[in-house]
């Protein structure tokens, strides 16, 4: 992972404290409360004065990924972040974003309200990694606005989920903009509720949403994924797949397609299955134990 060394992060928050801010040329990075004070225009996006979180304003294409890291290291911490990332016209950027708990038993909570604005012709690859403890509560709510001709690749990966995860993601796609959104969640004794919505508002706007969910160790996962097509010739596709590894887990997939324009086209595919016995037997006949074989099949599924 690109966020291995948090000391090199452009923004690193530890519990409630900002540990590091490392600005690069053409990029303004500030704690959100300071951005509220310094830039009046941010109030349009923040709505009210934020308590904590980051503000990243990218005005120049940067040749390397920007890295942020939000860590919970103390027990019973309750983070309440408001993040804003603004990408100016025709700028390209990549961000690797890590939110994690330093230990597995902190019983903490992490709430994040994120707004990401891609201005006309901008391109953003946003890689969002979550690693939590077994007793944490996590509620990120991210909203992306894709202005004309902009492009987003959003990868969300959660291989160590919290006890409770409530993940809300909303995209507004304007004219000619396109988004590829990939969610990978490995449920381990966790309850996860996902709500993803892509609004294809502009002419020729496009959105693809891909979900790969694994239910392990009594996990309960529910994903409601919606694409709303409003713009002429807008196109969207949902690809939701679940893999149940143990009999005490449950995955619910609720794909929803709403078409409000007769020139738009939206499609979906959804499936939930279990690991085929044949695959496991095959891998065991290559010398892997049953658990090793399951892990390999699951890792392959999450990449597929």
């Amino acid at each position: 992972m690109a966020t291995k060394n948090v000391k090199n992060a452009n923004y690193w928050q530890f519990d409630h404290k900002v540990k590091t801010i490392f600005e690069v040329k053409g990029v303004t990075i500030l704690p959100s409360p300071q951005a509220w004070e310094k830039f009046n225009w941010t109030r349009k996006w923040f709505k009210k004065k934020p308590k904590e979180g980051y503000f990243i304003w990218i005005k120049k294409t940067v040749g390397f990924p920007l890295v942020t890291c939000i860590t919970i290291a103390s027990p019973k911490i309750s983070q309440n972040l408001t993040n804003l990332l603004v990408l100016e016209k025709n700028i390209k950027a990549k961000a690797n974003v890590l939110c994690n708990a330093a230990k597995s038993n902190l019983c903490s909570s992490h709430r994040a309200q994120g707004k990401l604005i891609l201005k006309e012709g901008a391109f953003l690859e946003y890689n969002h990694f979550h690693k939590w403890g077994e007793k944490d509560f996590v509620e990120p709510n991210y909203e992306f606005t894709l202005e004309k001709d902009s492009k987003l690749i959003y990868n969300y990966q959660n291989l160590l989920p919290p006890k409770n995860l409530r993940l809300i993601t909303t995209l507004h796609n304007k004219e000619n903009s396109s988004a590829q959104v990939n969610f990978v969640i490995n449920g381990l004794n966790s309850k996860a509720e996902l709500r993803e919505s892509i609004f294809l508002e502009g002419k020729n706007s496009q959105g693809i949403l891909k979900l790969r969910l694994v239910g392990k160790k009594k996990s309960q996962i529910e994903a409601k994924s919606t694409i709303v097509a409003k713009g002429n010739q807008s196109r969207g596709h949902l690809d939701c797949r679940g893999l149940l590894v143990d009999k005490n887990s449950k995955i619910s997939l609720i794909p929803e397609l709403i078409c409000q324009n007769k020139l738009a086209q939206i499609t979906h595919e959804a499936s939930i299955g279990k690991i085929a016995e044949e695959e496991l037997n095959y891998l065991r006949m290559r010398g892997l134990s049953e658990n090793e074989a399951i892990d390999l099949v699951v890792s392959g599924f999450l990449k597929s």
Partner: protein
Amino acid sequence: MKNILLKTEKLRVEGNGKEILKGVNLQIKRGEIQALLGPNASGKSTLAQVILGNPKYKIKKGKIIFQGKDITKFTSEKRVKLGIALTWQSPPVIKGVKLSQLLERISFKKDFQPEEGKKLLEREVNVDFSGGEKKISELLQILSLNPKLVIFDEIDSGLDIKKIERVAKIIKKEFLGKKIKIAALFITHSGDILKFFKPKTTNVMVRGKIICKGKDYKKVLRVIKKYGYEKCKKCQLLAV
């Protein structure tokens, strides 16, 4: 007895509640090459899967002995570690896992760098592999396991003669050309591959039983061609 690598004793096996193997006796010595012929659904592949410990099949009676040890209740992975390997006739697809990743996970050899099939390494295991590519992939995997006995299940099926020659060449070079030769059991329906290996014993299985063991594979193939498997039992030339 010390020379015997694998032995099955009166093996009776059920699958889906139906008896498939009805008392199979098979004995393979170290470094020996044998063949197992038989019509479709005679139980050849089931025997291979049972020797490797596929839990889908229930052993009702009999034993499997490997290197003098009763392995009838061993898990598949334990049998592999002892040195038994099987190339599958129709291997399953493992989505999202590259062949190179699989080899890295299973290989008993350090820094296993196969000479053959390099083009397959970065592809997902068996996803859109042609018939020939599947066979090469199977051989690479088995090669990484350092086996003492390999069961080649229909390694020649679905291949044209050139591809059979290529597969035979790889097997000869990698498995049989070394100082310590492995033992091999070729399961084949057509018998096409046997001319490259000249098995010492050719077993014929019909309806879950080995009904004939011949020393001359050519003769066995000739008789089967002439009379068909159904008449094997009546064959005066091969009766044992």
